[in-house]
């Protein structure tokens, strides 16, 4: 089936060329980072994780959201999703690939990355994260490929794929739970030290992921002869609605606990993010933009009249995606480091090369996504005889 990715229109190859150009710049900057060190980024002794780890966290969520298609289709026999589960699975493959690249980009000694396998350390959550992320990547590659191949040959998928599909459902939950455990098990980091972090991560994942999938479905309908379907998009929209409502609800739970208990170690981070602390507050406008976008999207999504209009739904999905991206991809990680455990305030702003590397990795993800979607949609077009 791979050959299907090699044939396409001028527009298709033009898009790939653009992505390759962005990747090229990213690779160049990464070489620079490799020779200079992570000092090239905005990270510091106090804010020791930055943009890379934040993007990784956000994208784990996008990856996990594939389960929102797989679960209704395979466990509840919601037939409509059969048309698009492959899109969810391939989105997961692209997202997890980006996650792994972001981790590599963040390592001070990337050539030693295999030490995690050579000296397995089960007490470290990072060890488990490595296992669940790679496992999820392989599960989705194998399942997606087998099901698509079967569709191409108009036969049923091999029987052994079924157990893998069932395993992939709790596995999707595990990737984001383990990722949250990276943060929420650390003493002295009050911002993350909350049992609701994993549920909150999952809620924002089930909002951002399906929202992005809706946008992709609409794009696919516009650019190809394959229509993911109106019903499918509307069901996804309901999932996004529940996801974003839960996400905001969990955030409000946090706000209550933090500001009613008034324990400084927990409260100071929230104050820093939403109001600024001791005159420092680069993220304040961003965080309020995020809140505004999430609330605006809720208004558009909860009302069935606006949700059912695909134009408005598009706007709502963009708001959900950007809103949750700011919340997780910008505030969640550096917010946990400011103030530092010694109560110093060192702010974090990513540098230009850091952003170029980040964009490069996103471009790799989009390249993987483009190639996989091209294959899947060509198969679907042929199967439907259009």
């Amino acid at each position: 089936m791979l050959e299907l990715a090699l044939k396409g229109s001028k527009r298709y190859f033009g898009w790939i060329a653009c992505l390759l150009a962005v990747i090229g710049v990213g690779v160049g900057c990464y070489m620079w980072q490799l020779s200079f060190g992570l000092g090239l980024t905005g990270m510091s002794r106090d804010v020791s994780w930055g943009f890379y780890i934040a993007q990784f966290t956000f994208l784990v969520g996008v990856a996990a959201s594939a389960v929102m298609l797989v679960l209704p289709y395979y466990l509840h026999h919601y037939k409509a999703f059969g048309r698009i589960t492959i899109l969810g699975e391939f989105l997961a493959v692209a997202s997890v690939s980006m996650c792994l690249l972001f981790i590599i980009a963040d390592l001070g000694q990337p050539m030693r990355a295999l030490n995690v396998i050579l000296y397995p350390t089960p007490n470290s959550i990072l060890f488990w994260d490595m296992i669940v992320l790679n496992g999820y990547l392989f599960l989705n590659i194998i399942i997606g490929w087998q099901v698509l191949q079967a569709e191409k040959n108009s036969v049923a998928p091999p029987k052994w794929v079924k157990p893998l599909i069932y395993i992939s459902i709790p596995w999707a939950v595990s990737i984001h739970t383990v990722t949250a455990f990276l943060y929420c098990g650390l003493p002295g980091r009050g911002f993350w030290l909350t049992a609701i972090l994993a549920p909150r991560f999952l809620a924002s994942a089930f909002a951002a992921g399906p929202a992005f999938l809706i946008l992709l479905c609409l794009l696919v309908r516009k650019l190809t002869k394959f229509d993911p379907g109106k019903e499918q998009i509307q069901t996804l929209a309901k999932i996004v609605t529940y996801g974003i409502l839960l996400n905001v609800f969990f955030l409000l739970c946090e706000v209550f606990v933090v500001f009613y208990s008034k324990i400084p170690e927990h409260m100071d981070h929230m104050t820093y993010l939403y109001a600024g602390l001791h005159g420092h507050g680069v993220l304040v406008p961003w965080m309020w933009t995020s809140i505004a976008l999430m609330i605006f999207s809720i208004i558009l999504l909860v009302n069935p009249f606006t949700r059912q209009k695909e134009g408005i739904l598009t706007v709502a999905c963009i708001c959900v995606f950007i809103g949750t991206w700011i919340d997780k991809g910008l505030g969640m990680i550096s917010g946990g480091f400011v103030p530092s455990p010694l109560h110093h305030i060192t702010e974090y702003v990513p540098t230009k090369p850091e952003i170029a590397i980040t964009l490069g990795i996103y471009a790799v993800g989009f390249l993987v996504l483009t190639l996989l979607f091209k294959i899947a949609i060509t198969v679907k077009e042929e199967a439907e005889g259009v």
Partner: protein
Amino acid sequence: MENSRRNFLKIAGISALGLSATPVLDAFALDISMLDMKINATPGKDAITAKRWGMVIDTRKFESEEDLKPMIEACHKIHNVPVLENKRHEIKWIWEEEFKHAFPNLEHEYVNESVEHLPFLVLCNHCKDAPCVRACPTKATFKREDGIILMDFHRCIGCRFCMAACPYGSRSFNFRDPRPFIKDINKKFPTRARGVVEKCNFCAERLAVGQQPACVEASKGALVFGDLENPESEVRRLLKTNYTIRRKVALGTGPSVYYIV
């Protein structure tokens, strides 16, 4: 045209060579310095040993920042700690903090003047139940039998999970190659490469040859080092006769550094 092509080929060739040779060179570099480290930290016949090493810092003996300098300098010189201008990239093993930063949960408005303005020495607490050891995915940070939390600079992948885990900000990361920023290199102790984490090692390499930690030696008796599990030790005598505090005890990490205030 010809010229630029030749230049391109030259650069491409050099880069390819560089890329393929770097890991090999790195591997050699590692072996040699690892050998160094083994010679350095393995207890010899004169070694001083303990069940659990600990430190008592008598802060009453310090009056100003100046009093702390000799200890910080002794440590940083011996351990090849670089001096970096950029605060963000700073490396420090032992340094000074105001009371409100060293003990953020003990600070209050009416704290006595001497404490308020007194600089406090802070360093790795060599916790009994260290969160950094729990977090490290490669056992590059590990706890030795005598309670010292050590780093294997050659195994560290630079993920900085330990830095997120440490509630005392005791860990530094080499954001860039530290070597150009070390004034005189102490050849008896390894320098670090960029991309690894480091911190105070309670002078494991000095204990191995029967010496006290460098900061203790430079402290004129203000810092006392000894076995916390030996009731006869000097640290235990001090703990018995003075009221001491430790940093962030509520977190349950069990710091091994005690402060007399």
